[in-house]
């Protein structure tokens, strides 16, 4: 990987990880029955946006058109697949992510979804947070490097 790209990806990974951690904390508070702060609600709104983007990314291949949002959607889709390790089919993925979106929407709007549903959502974002930490580690240690010593003609 080009060093410049590695640094950009490392920065992305840190950002994604920090956000996932904040979402997990907000969901832990919700599951615990605590009142959510403005900061928690903002984190949950971002969680909704991430899940909606994951669905867009999932559908992209059926109508492959590009826009400025395409890369972000594809990225969220990838992270969602990683956070659902026991889902193997498209239909299963779509159903799961739709259910999670419904739960996070309910929470954001002041509703009280069941503890099981909140736990499912929390697990999803915890898995995402953990994968992101692994990714950060790999990028920091250069473990995924394939061409680190290559002359970079034009970066």
């Amino acid at each position, binding site marked *: 990987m080009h060093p*410049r790209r590695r640094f950009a990806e490392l*920065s992305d990974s*840190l950002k994604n990880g920090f956000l996932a951690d904040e979402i997990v904390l907000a969901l832990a508070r919700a599951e615990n029955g605590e009142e959510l702060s403005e900061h928690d609600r903002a984190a949950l709104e971002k969680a909704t946006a991430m899940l909606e983007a994951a669905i867009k990314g*999932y559908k*992209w291949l*059926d109508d492959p058109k590009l826009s400025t949002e395409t890369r972000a959607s594809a990225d969220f889709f990838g992270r969602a697949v990683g956070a659902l390790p026991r889902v*193997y*089919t498209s239909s299963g993925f779509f159903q799961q992510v739709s259910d999670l979106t419904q739960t996070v929407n309910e929470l954001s709007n002041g509703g009280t979804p069941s503890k099981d549903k909140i736990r499912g959502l929390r697990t999803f974002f915890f898995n995402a947070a953990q994968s992101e930490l692994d990714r950060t580690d790999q990028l920091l240690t250069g473990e995924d490097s394939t061409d680190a010593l290559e*002359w970079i*003609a034009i970066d």
Partner: protein
Amino acid sequence: MDSHRLVAQLKIESAQNRAQALIEEVGRIKNRPYSSPASKDILEFVQEAATAIRSLLESEKTVADASPLMPAELEVRLHRTIKVIPYLHTLIGFIEGSEIPKSPGQLIQPLRRYVRSVIMNSDIVVSSKPELNYSIREVVASIRKAFSETPPPLSQSCAKLPDFLFLVNIPAIESEQILIHAILSHELGHALYNKHDLEKRLLPAIKIRDKMIRHLVNVITTGETESSPMSEIWLRQYVTDQVTERVSRWVTELSSDMIGIQLFGPALYFASTTLLSSFSHIDRCSSSHPPPRLRIKLMTRMLKKAYTTDKWHSNLTELIKAWADISGETIATRQPMDQIAIESLDRDDVLDLIETSVSDAIPEELRYNSTKLDADVRDLVPLILNSVPPGELGPMGREKPIELVSIINAGWYVYLCQLAEFGARLHESAANSRLAAATGLHRLILKALEISDIRISWEEAKRDSERGKD
């Protein structure tokens, strides 16, 4: 306190010590003489961010004590914050080699001035490293992004950074090869591409090759994967990621090449083809970078449109014809994802669109053009051939500084067309060696940049003095 909470407290304290060590190390190395002022900006940022990390970790003690997080969640959360410390170490590593004895000081100020003329509030750091690697990267956008989801002490530590900071790494052994620095214009292309939101205009106009995508969708949905162990959803995700990443990143690279040609003219073309031909397989591509053959094809196309290349010196005409022939051949790819990206982008309508879109992003006064090139060949090349550094031009007492882009283009012209003639006028020890002549040429160009910069600084000081500024 339970064991998990206790260990969490220990982790926090240990990380705080590491942050403190970082703060002290920066205090120690900050006073070294750096050739690029921005090296100190980076160090000050690291110091401020490490201080912010220390206080952020302090507040995590409350999270560890009182939050409803499970031990595994707390562990991940703490390690995230701790990872910022090696991230800051990486930044310190970036500026190593930018100290005055190691980095070519004459180069910094002219490059810095040029970069700022293209993008205000930007800066550069030039470091020479003991490795055969030439790279340029912009880091501030990434740093701001990394901390965008963190609490204020950390996110605010980015406030003093310039809008853009380009880190130029050059191999220590070849640090005087000044002509190669034309590729800085490609990197400026990345910044201009983002600044002018060219993606918004370009991406929707690109049609992904339907036939291959349809085939892949069919393979995925019907499970015809030749006993692949991959799950259907994984395969779908993989294809989506690979195709979208390639197409969008390749468009950025191709556009940045185009911007580079607009800014630096033939100098970027020659620098790129020199580096690409020396170190890259012509059809080798990655998810982030298109094959050199496609890049050269687009650059050659643009050069031929903007310049009367068929009337150039025969050495250049021959070189450009060779690249045009080779880049016109079919690109041999090994992966279907690469093939989809190539077939989606290697089309006249897409290449035309890239050309016109990037042209709109560059102010007229920053563009290098055929008229400027003709003047540079006419006025500067004879000076170089007579071993006079072409840093200023004009009647005695009213000399004007020569622009960096002009100096580098004139240098390339001599390098490619009249190096033997240049070398013949050097000391006899250099006269018969192409390498020695090239070294002499690079030194002369470097001196020209230095003279030009002194002249610009002098003019600026004179203007300030006339305006009564101190």
